[in-house]
């Protein structure tokens, strides 16, 4: 009895020893447990995408258990009375059954759809973070390219998924996809006929999209996500400049236990938000759209938000057809094929283009504040404005209807806006960045405005400034060098005021340590280049 107890206590040790004998796990495990991660809220955006993807995998597998990817015509005889007796595809019927006759099926469908929307949204915001902070610079160019591929694949995952239920909206989307293929010079008709297995819509497309949606695309996504995370691990995360932070180190906390726990907690929170959205907000009520019929469409038929910009570009494109002898190129070719292609390939080249322009061959592990590279911010805002105008134009009939504007006016506003607003956004954002830079330099040179007005003996009024660093013999601050990080601009950032709000948890949260970096001089800092 006693001996067995002894053995039990020794069991973990024996087991661990056995594992290490076979896999030599202890040394790499030590490295993993000790790995240091920098922390900042903006580093969580990519995590939201990862967690939504996991939710997509979980809910998607559930849906496959009930979904029938067949276009065979059947007569509906299910619980939803309004459609009883209607002829529809088996795919649509099984989606209806998922919604009405599978316990919790509607909840799962809505979770899947909301997770897809969140997945795409967080990828876009994450990409914006990477872009505006220069996190794509050497050595992380490859991860930037992978990120864009992930967006592209997500786009197609969403489109194929949206097509599966074979309801009125998804059929309309497929119809347009077929028309886009048709616009390709020379091979258009062949491509469409081959993909649809004959004339649109044929009887194969749902089955083909199904295998792409549940196997091919998620498989490639999974592989790319693995490489993406592996590279982050290998190259270590970037960090903001700040006290003690250099281009050669990582300042933060070790991965275990605190960092890993925070990730786990955050995953549960994202999962919970998706569950709440799925329960409370109806999404894609396919039973209202009816089965796809070539003769029927409702106005205000909108794709998911991440496809809307495409729809908008197609709406705004003027009807310019190019004729070459007996042949022609329809206008939709430009926005839908050339435009989409450019949208996905040009950003891939951006890291190299920027490095070449700045003649910058160095390795960067410190992030840049957006204001320190005004041109990049300008380009980013230009792209963002373009995307916004295109997306809003994808809903221009809804806007026209809601605000009683003429549709034609909306179209023209979109056309003009698409050309005029992006350069304007470029100009404005570059000016704002330069202004912010200027203000940082002013505060570093003269100190923080205190709001205290002093009257000099000669009657002049001046504002008292609190110097941030040492002063010279006249009491004037010695100008400080800009360190690429937040310059405190309010007195309470210097600890002059107590925090006003008490935390829900005790102890009261300490005010964020005033992140003044100039004081740390001894440390080698990456030279910060400020655009202009």
């Amino acid at each position: 009895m006693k001996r067995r107890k002894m053995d039990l206590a020794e069991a973990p040790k024996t087991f661990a020893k056995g594992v290490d004998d076979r896999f030599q796990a202890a040394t790499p495990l030590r490295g993993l447990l000790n790995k240091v991660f920098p922390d900042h809220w903006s580093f969580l955006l990519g995590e939201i995408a990862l967690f939504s993807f996991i939710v997509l995998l979980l809910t998607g597998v559930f849906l496959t258990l009930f979904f029938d990817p067949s276009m065979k015509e059947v007569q509906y005889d299910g619980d939803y009375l309004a459609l009883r007796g209607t002829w529809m595809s088996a795919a649509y019927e099984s989606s209806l059954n998922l919604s009405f006759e599978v316990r919790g099926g509607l909840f799962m469908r809505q979770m899947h759809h909301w997770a897809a929307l969140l997945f795409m949204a967080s990828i876009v915001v994450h990409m914006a973070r990477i872009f505006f902070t220069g996190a794509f610079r050497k050595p992380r160019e490859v991860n930037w390219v992978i990120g864009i591929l992930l967006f592209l694949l997500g786009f197609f995952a969403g489109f194929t998924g949206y097509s599966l239920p074979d309801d009125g909206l998804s059929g309309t989307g497929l119809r347009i996809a077929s028309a886009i293929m048709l616009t390709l010079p020379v091979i258009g008709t062949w491509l469409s006929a081959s993909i649809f297995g004959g004339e649109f819509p044929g009887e194969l497309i749902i089955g083909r999209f199904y295998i792409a949606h549940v196997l091919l695309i998620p498989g490639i996504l999974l592989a790319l996500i693995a490489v993406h995370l592996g590279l982050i691990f290998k190259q270590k995360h970037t960090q903001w400049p700040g006290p003690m932070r250099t281009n050669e180190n990582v300042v933060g906390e070790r991965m275990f236990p605190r960092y890993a726990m925070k990730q786990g907690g955050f995953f549960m929170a994202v999962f919970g938000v998706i569950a709440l959205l799925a329960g409370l907000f109806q999404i894609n009520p396919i039973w209202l759209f009816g089965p796809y019929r070539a003769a029927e469409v409702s106005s205000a038929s909108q794709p998911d938000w991440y496809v809307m910009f495409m729809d908008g570009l197609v709406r705004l494109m003027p009807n310019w057809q190019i004729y070459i002898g007996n042949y022609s190129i329809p206008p939709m070719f430009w926005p839908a094929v050339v435009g989409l292609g450019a949208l996905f390939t040009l950003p891939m080249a951006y890291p190299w283009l920027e490095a070449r322009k700045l003649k910058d061959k160095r390795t960067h592990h410190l992030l840049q504040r957006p204001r320190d590279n005004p041109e990049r911010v300008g380009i980013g805002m230009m792209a963002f404005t373009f995307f916004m105008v295109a997306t809003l134009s994808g809903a221009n009939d809804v806007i026209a209807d809601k605000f009683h504007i003429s549709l034609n006016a909306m179209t023209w506003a979109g056309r003009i806006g698409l050309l005029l607003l992006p350069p304007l956004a470029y100009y404005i954002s570059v000016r704002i960045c330069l202004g912010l830079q200027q203000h940082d330099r002013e505060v570093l040179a003269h100190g923080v405005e205190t709001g205290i007005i002093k009257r000099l003996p000669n009657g002049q009024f001046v504002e008292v400034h609190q110097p941030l660093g040492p002063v010279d013999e006249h009491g004037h601050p010695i100008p400080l060098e800009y360190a690429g990080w937040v310059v405190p601009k309010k007195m309470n950032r210097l600890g002059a005021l107590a925090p006003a709000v008490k935390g829900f948890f005790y102890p009261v949260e300490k005010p964020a340590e005033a992140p003044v970096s100039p004081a740390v001089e001894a440390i080698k800092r990456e030279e910060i280049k400020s655009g202009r």
Partner: protein
Amino acid sequence: MTAEHHAGGAGAKPVDVRDPHLTRFDIVKEGLRRDDIEIVTYESQFHGQNSKAEKRVVRNIALLFLISGAATLAFLGFYIWWPWEFELGHTLSDYYTPILGISLGIGLLALGFAILAWAKKLLPHELSIQQRHGDPSSDSDRLIAGQTIIYMADELGVQRRPLLKGAIALGMAPLGLAAAAPLVGGLIENPHKGEHPMMYTTGFHPSHNDGKPVRLTREDGSPIRPEDVSTGGQMTVFPGIPHGATNQHADSPTLLIHLRSDDATVTRAAADADPRNRGSMWGDYVAYSKICTHAGCPASLYEQQTNRLLCPCHQSQFLITDNAQPIFGPATRRLPMLPLTVDAEGFFVAASDFKDTVGPDFWERP
């Protein structure tokens, strides 16, 4: 635990981890040293052990875990016992999905916040610095790797043995093609095959009806007499053939319009001035393909006052009284007109198939 300053890291000296006098934390620090990590601060968030503040945090976290458990149990209960089968009208089953979402959402959120609070509020605050060591491989290693690859390529001797070069190409290329062949060969479809290529014919082609003209029918297959469409009215019609109203003939839906007589006069003048549409109207009736020439949505919104057809997908507008020419939006091509006539029994028939190609435009359209 109180503040530990500058534990481990580059400056620290190696220790013998078997030394019985070492604390566990000393061993952890030795691990950090080996991974080139320096702990700058590592301090408890509370003053002293079991402080009041700490107990309060622990209570709050425990509460969150309990809320999570209760909400998740509630989810299970609702999942099992709440009436879920769909019924018409307002019933409890309408709330099945929301109640699942709320209970599961609260359960997961509370669990997430509990873990987050535990990590953020209970665990010691730490600031560590790890050196990156992102240096590239040494020059000599680069040289060795490069030379090894070249050496191996040399060993293969493809450069020296040109016969092999050609033989590899000729021997292996067919295999690559063989791999691609079933994929390409199986998928490829000739859009122009057959006597009546699919791109250029619709369900109204007489070949679908043993060579006889095809009737215009409603969705249920019933034929249409002129008096079935009131003046100023319109009707979506399909080819009167088996499956004519299904997606097998997705290019065939047609809009039959009974124009007011003044509009009809204008429309007929325009049609007769056009070589393809000449004589295609029947009386005051005109029929246009409903499939938008832009991207194939049904151009189905008929504005009676302005005689325009609006496509809801990208807002192309077609003028009915002028051969359905596009007058706004991205479409470049008019909607094809279906030549109308009436058969011996007084039902509408298509005198022939559409004379223009129906649907979205493409490269080789005649």
